[in-house]
């Protein structure tokens, strides 16, 4: 499973969104993700992927692909 697929999995579980709505270029704003959900995503990224991403880094213009890149960069730097 790629990091993007793991991210999409987390997002889909949160919002019960049909899988089709999550795509790499979709922004958090387009997916109607509010501030509490960014906290939830941050918690789940830490819990499921073992990477720390602050909820303040999950801004509305961030794409899901961008979030995957962020997670991957943290994985690289923490290994």
């Amino acid at each position, binding site marked *: 499973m790629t990091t993007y697929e793991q991210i999409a999995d987390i997002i889909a579980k949160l919002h019960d969104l049909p899988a089709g709505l999550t795509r790499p270029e979709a922004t958090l704003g387009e997916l109607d993700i509010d501030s509490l959900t960014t906290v*939830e995503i941050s918690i*789940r990224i830490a819990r499921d992927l073992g990477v720390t991403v602050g909820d303040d880094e999950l801004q509305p213009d961030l794409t899901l692909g961008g979030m995957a890149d962020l997670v991957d960069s943290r994985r690289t730097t923490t290994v």
Partner: protein
Amino acid sequence: MPSNTLSPPVPAAVLCGLAGWVPPRVVTNDELAERLDTDDAWIRTRTGIRRRHVAEPGQATSDLAVAAGRLALRSAGTDSVDAVIVTTTTPDRPCPATAPVVATRLGLAGAAAFDVGAVCTGFVYGLATAAGLIASGVARRVLLIGADTYSTIVDPLDRTNAIIFGDGAGAVVLRAGHADEPGAVGHFDLGSDGAHEELITVAAGGSRQRATGGEPTHAERHFAMRGKEVYRHAVTRMAASARTALSEAGWKTDDVDHFVPHQANLRILHSVADDLDLPRERCVANIDAVGNTGAASIPLALADAVARQRIRAGERLLLTAFGGGLTWGSCLLTWPELAPHL
């Protein structure tokens, strides 16, 4: 004393009565949308709440507590207890405690009566307190009431909090019994972290605000909560507390038939259930109908689930709460046979 003398077993607190009561007035999301910049769909998807009950002007926390307490005594088939504990964040007055007047109005004058304050964790703290009174032999029977009227401290124009909170009361009766019988509450995990007291506050009305001088502002007189930080603490603390209680008891997650959390926000409840690897279907939630009712939320959720026969005798329950302080707590019990409370 001869070494082979057996001490009598320490009595356990056994749940033998349960009831919930909410004031009749219902406030729907649509009604809130008339005065706040929000709508029904927004509230439902963000919180899982469809409506909440609100006390009438002049209706105090003790009024709700008496109504729930009376029903719980009836459920237990008793009209006497040795102690009355009210757990609340919205006492009738800063002084005195609310429990004595509740006890007297229930015909229980003379019983020990005091309040426990642990904000939304109050019910679990209250259960532990009641269990301690029973274990120490101070009381054989305790009435514990979680009651809150958040409508009296939440600014009605504060969209963040006005959509979440409702008023209500839930009560249980606990009697002295054996640790291995259904209804015995145990394996408590209680905790706190005062370093984060600023996350959930009513700034004015206590000695701290008075000590700093000056008239309180409108905001200082009302309930305030730092949502994002509270959310993160709630999820992580509740999951950790639940794990500790389960570990103490030697239960696996799969042993839990029903997870009954403080009804803070449906997203928090699902997040904790996911963290514990508990199927969401095992999470008991009535937040859609009553909102977050503070210290009343767990007994109200229990009363609702039992009335709908969702929880049945012999099933195993995990209760977990989180609240201002910060405070958190969990305990376990096997559900007993209870008489209908109406």
